[in-house]
């Protein structure tokens, strides 16, 4: 059996099968990206926070656009080469196309990587508008000292054991209570055991028991005997915590619960039968509330039920000796904790008892963003600038080891470094506003309330001298040649500008919302990663197909070159579509 029109076109439609297929597929792709673009449009038009306009470094996107356009040309040339039966040329063009795909993905990877490592925090506290000032930057690293307190360490040591990113919650754990109805503890138990190591012993606080079921089932016991019977011991007091032990306890608990429920179910069903038989079907219909049944059943039946039941605890407690300082990711806790809280709950409902230790976020800040503050202040009818100046960020006292130590020794200047940056920014803004006014224009929200990494560095270079900033702002010598700055290729570069970015310690209580520049941070990054990620998958898929033709196409070429040409045309159509999507993605994600 042979399917017709694989190579040659059908006469009346003028098309071969795979061409119809690919165009249909592309039509569905149009609606797929249509759906995603609808999402973009909707989220952007109705965002309740200032949409991050032109937030991405343009250069990687621009290069990627060139790469994709170039590969579009080469793929169509590869097809033309096949049409002219030039195998060698086909190979060359196709190889260039694949290399372009690789280059595209590498650049994408660099961009993604920069985002994943870039921390953002929405601060709370200070002023009438809560939860709004945003700082961006890189997290520093920390470890525990001998007293179990958090101390900052140099970035070079980040791969060492015991060193963690300075965004963890520290709890002095003295007790763990595991919930046995939640059977997936593995990840956390492993983490706890790892951190405990040899330092602390974690052992069962009370023996875990259920009643011996076999005897009960055999009907050999009554209630009086029961109280004297030794309970079936599943685990002794002092057993050390392990995943196996927890599994065993869970099994015992679930088995006991299953046993209980089974007899309760049978009892309930029998009660309903009894109600129907004794009271009659009519009246049974009024017995809608369960309690009435239990009340009416003979008392001794209810008593029997109690006797038959096993009683296994659904929670087990383990003691930690000596108490252990546990380092936990904030995302592992069901809700935020503050310093001094006496317990915290993990996502699997495990209760960690113990005091929450000071565990600030420590970061090098490379951008301040008050746009949300300004927007919310304006919504309240307030002047944004004083509101911004009341925020915690601009008023807190700097902690040890930060760059503004020398400022304090002079005695006169009590401003923290962020206030200094802000003051410089106000000076620059004044110069910029005056310059734009001459052209009949006004600064944007971005200009006014966002301080970028390059601005921070520029202000710092002028020693936060407001006058100088104003002067240079007027003469426009502060601005960097943004687009082609290689040290800002994928955003602020903390390696090149090591140690320059202001140091900030944020107490847990002042963290409103924090995330790296991943989809979690805001809907812009969410849609950015979703669309470009999906587009990247298309690039990979297209490259796989084209690669197949390049490396395994020779056989097809030898049997019928036109067949391969058709295939490459179809693969090429897909490739052009991928390019076409990028043509829209580049402006809407990078330039708008």
């Amino acid at each position, binding site marked *: 059996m042979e399917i017709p029109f694989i190579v040659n076109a059908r006469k009346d439609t*003028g098309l071969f099968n795979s061409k119809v297929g690919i165009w*249909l597929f592309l039509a569905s792709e149009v609606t797929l990206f249509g759906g*995603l673009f609808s*999402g973009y449009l909707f989220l952007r038009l109705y965002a309740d926070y200032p949409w991050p306009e032109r937030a991405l470094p343009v250069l990687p996107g621009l290069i990627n656009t060139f790469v994709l356009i170039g590969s579009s040309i080469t793929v169509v040339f590869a097809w033309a080469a096949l049409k002219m039966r030039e195998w060698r040329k086909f190979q060359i063009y196709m190889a260039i196309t694949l290399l372009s795909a690789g280059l595209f993905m590498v650049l994408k990877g660099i961009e993604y990587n920069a985002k994943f490592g870039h921390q953002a925090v929405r601060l709370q506290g200070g002023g009438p508008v809560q939860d709004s000032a945003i700082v961006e930057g890189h997290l520093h690293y920390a470890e525990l000292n001998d007293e179990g307190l958090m101390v900052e360490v140099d970035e070079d040591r980040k791969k060492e054991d015991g060193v963690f990113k300075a965004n963890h919650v520290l709890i002095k754990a003295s007790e763990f209570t595991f919930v046995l109805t939640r059977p997936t503890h593995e990840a*956390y138990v492993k983490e706890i055991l790892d951190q405990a190591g040899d330092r602390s012993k974690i052992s069962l606080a009370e023996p875990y028991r259920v009643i011996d079921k076999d005897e009960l089932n055999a009907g050999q016991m009554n209630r009086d005997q029961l109280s004297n019977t030794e309970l079936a011991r599943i685990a002794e007091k002092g057993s050390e915590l392990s995943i196996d032990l927890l599994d065993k306890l869970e099994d015992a608990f679930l088995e006991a619960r299953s046993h209980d429920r089974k007899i309760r179910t049978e009892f309930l069903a029998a009660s309903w039968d009894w109600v129907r038989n004794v009271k009659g079907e009519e009246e049974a219909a009024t017995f809608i509330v369960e309690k009435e049944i239990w009340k009416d059943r003979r008392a001794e039946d209810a008593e029997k039920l109690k006797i038959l039941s096993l009683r296994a605890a659904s929670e087990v407690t383990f003691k930690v000796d000596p108490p252990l300082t546990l380092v936990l990711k904030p995302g592992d806790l069901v809700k935020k904790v503050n310093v001094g809280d006496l317990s915290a709950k993990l996502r699997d409902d495990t209760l960690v008892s113990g005091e929450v230790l000071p565990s600030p976020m420590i970061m090098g800040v490379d951008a301040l963003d008050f746009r949300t503050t300004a927007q919310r202040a304006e919504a309240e009818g307030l002047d944004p600038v004083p509101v911004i100046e009341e925020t915690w960020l601009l008023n807190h006292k700097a902690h040890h080891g930060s760059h503004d130590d020398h400022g304090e020794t002079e005695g006169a200047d009590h401003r923290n470094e962020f206030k200094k940056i802000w003051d410089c920014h106000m000076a620059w803004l004044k110069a910029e506003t005056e310059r734009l006014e001459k052209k009949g224009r006004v600064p944007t929200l971005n200009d006014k309330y966002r301080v970028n990494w390059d601005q921070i560095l520029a202000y710092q270079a002028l020693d936060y001298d407001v006058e100088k900033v104003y002067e240079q702002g007027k003469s426009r010598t502060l601005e960097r040649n943004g687009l082609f700055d290689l040290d800002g290729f994928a955003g602020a570069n903390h390696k090149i500008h090591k140690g320059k970015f202001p140091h900030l310690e944020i107490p847990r209580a002042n963290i409103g919302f924090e995330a790296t520049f991943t989809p*979690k941070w805001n809907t812009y990054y969410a849609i950015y990663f*979703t669309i470009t990620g*999906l587009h990247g998958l298309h690039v990979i898929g297209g490259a796989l197909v084209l690669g197949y033709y390049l490396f395994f196409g020779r056989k097809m070429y030898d049997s019928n070159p036109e067949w391969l040409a058709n295939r490459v045309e179809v693969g090429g159509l897909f490739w052009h579509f991928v390019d076409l999507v990028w043509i829209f993605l580049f402006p809407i994600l990078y330039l708008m």
Partner: protein
Amino acid sequence: MSADPHDQHDEHHHVLPWWKKYFFSTDHKTIGIQYGLAAGAFLLFGFFLMIVMRWSIAYPHEPLPGYMSWMFTDGWKARWLDDGKVTGETYNMFGAMHGTIMVFLGVVPLGFAAFGNYVTPLQIGAPDMAFPKLNMASFWVYLAGGLVMCMSFFMESGAAKSGWTNYSPLAGYADKQIVNQFLAGQTQWLIGLVLLITSSLLGSVNFVTTIIQLRAKGLTWMRLPFFVWAMLVTGFLLLLAFPPLEAAGIMQLMDRVVGSSFFMPSGLYSASSGAAMDISGSGSPLLYQHLFWFLGHPEVYVLLLPAIACVAEIIPCNTRKPLWGYKSMVWSVVILGFLSFIVWAHHMYLTGMGPVISTFFQTTTVLISVPSVILLTSMIISLWGGSIRFTMPMIWAAAFLPMFGIGGLTGLPLAFNLADLHLHDTYYVIGHFHYVVAPGILFGLFSGVYHWYPKMTGRFMDNFLGHLHFWPSLVCMNLLFFPMLTQGMAGFHRRWYNGGEGYIEKGVEGVNVFGITVAEKISLNEIMTGSAIALAVFQLPFLVNMFISYFWGKKVTSDNPWDATTLEWATPTPPGHGNFTFDPAIYRGPYEYSRPDHDSDFFPQWEEPKRDAPAKEVEVEPEKTTTMV
């Protein structure tokens, strides 16, 4: 023509290994049957979930009988009962999965994929689908998606529990306590959904390409059987409507797995953890609803069209007269397909959309009833003056017409904004679309099974068991779904797990009108539950019938046992690999029954005209036009 499928295929008579023949087959017929069996199994499971739910509605305080609870007791990993009773959470879970299974795993694969796969290539004279391997991939991806969804019953979280529509923010938050989100039922649902969508995209590309490219000689567009037209339109619906839901599915997956806020608005507070949710906010639940219903409404027609298609094949064959208004039916189905894309927001009148957009969708919704009515009317008129043979398929098809009629007409009040505000999310809506889907679509598909079974197996299905299946089903369906309309108008909400018991008011009349209304109508629950269980029992004759007829059914005496005119009856029985033993050519339209100038009462499409027939029929003309518009 021989009934032996192997006659033509001596040249490649190599025997395929059994797993290639029955499992990883690229033959459209095997794949169609695979789809049918898998979808049937899913339908039964979805039905089972429904009976559990109905038990909970009628007898909320009674433990489930053992034959319902065995799968969900504490002894198993699926521990979803509380002392044998269905809890509210369990009810939600079963409700969500019942809808999902029935729509995405049951009826669509059965109608579009199973019947479409088996019948379409045969009706257009193609040796197979245009891309057989893609076809196979489509089935296995579908099965993987379905199993992923159903497997989640046995996970810690249980299966998805936010309704079959999976609205955010509920769906974005449910199961958030699960540490590894990929092991949460709510996430599994999304993964399954993305797989299902991928499967149906592969399938629909394949269908449309096959219909466009692989038609036999002389099979012009207006000679296509209506079944093929319906499949073509369905293919386009799936092709263009599903991707936005795939986008929404991916976005919701992101919301769940990486914590984004596509559909999560600002200011959400979680009562269970007692704190503001750790999300950025600024997303929109409304966006999800739009993207969902952009698929959701065309999906209704994806469910419906294959059933109409089956019925439209069976009616002319059993009335022995042409389908009335074939051309207007074709145009109706095309217009129906197009309009179905711009009616979706009538599912969302209650979301706070303003009057302008509501009026737009109200207008298009009313418009779409025009082609639907044309379809149904044409089929009813087709019965007029026919000498109807009440064969098993015809009985089902005949029952389809009024049942689907009730389903369609009860939909009209829902199209209007004002009426819908009252009826939204009540049992009226449930009654309406179940009338469309269960006694409507499923009856249509049953008729298809009885109609094509002889072609698939070479044996008829048993008539007695057929009647034993049909009559009780018809009665039970109506007893099950008609009271829903009553309850719905009285205000019964569709998500009450205890049937509304909490609202009953036994006190003085006039104080709590709603409570008294609920008390009046609540006893209907027991009738409906009883009917549902009876309905399940009376599906047994069908299952038995399918099985025993395969071995002991009455054998067919010719390849065309129903004396039908369309091309699938020109193949050997059952058709072998490659389908046709001759090179099919088409000489006339699909429903040439009782032609006065022909000796027998049917004139098959493939039969060469006699030499003295009028000249215009002799020409075997491939169609000249190259476009379908």
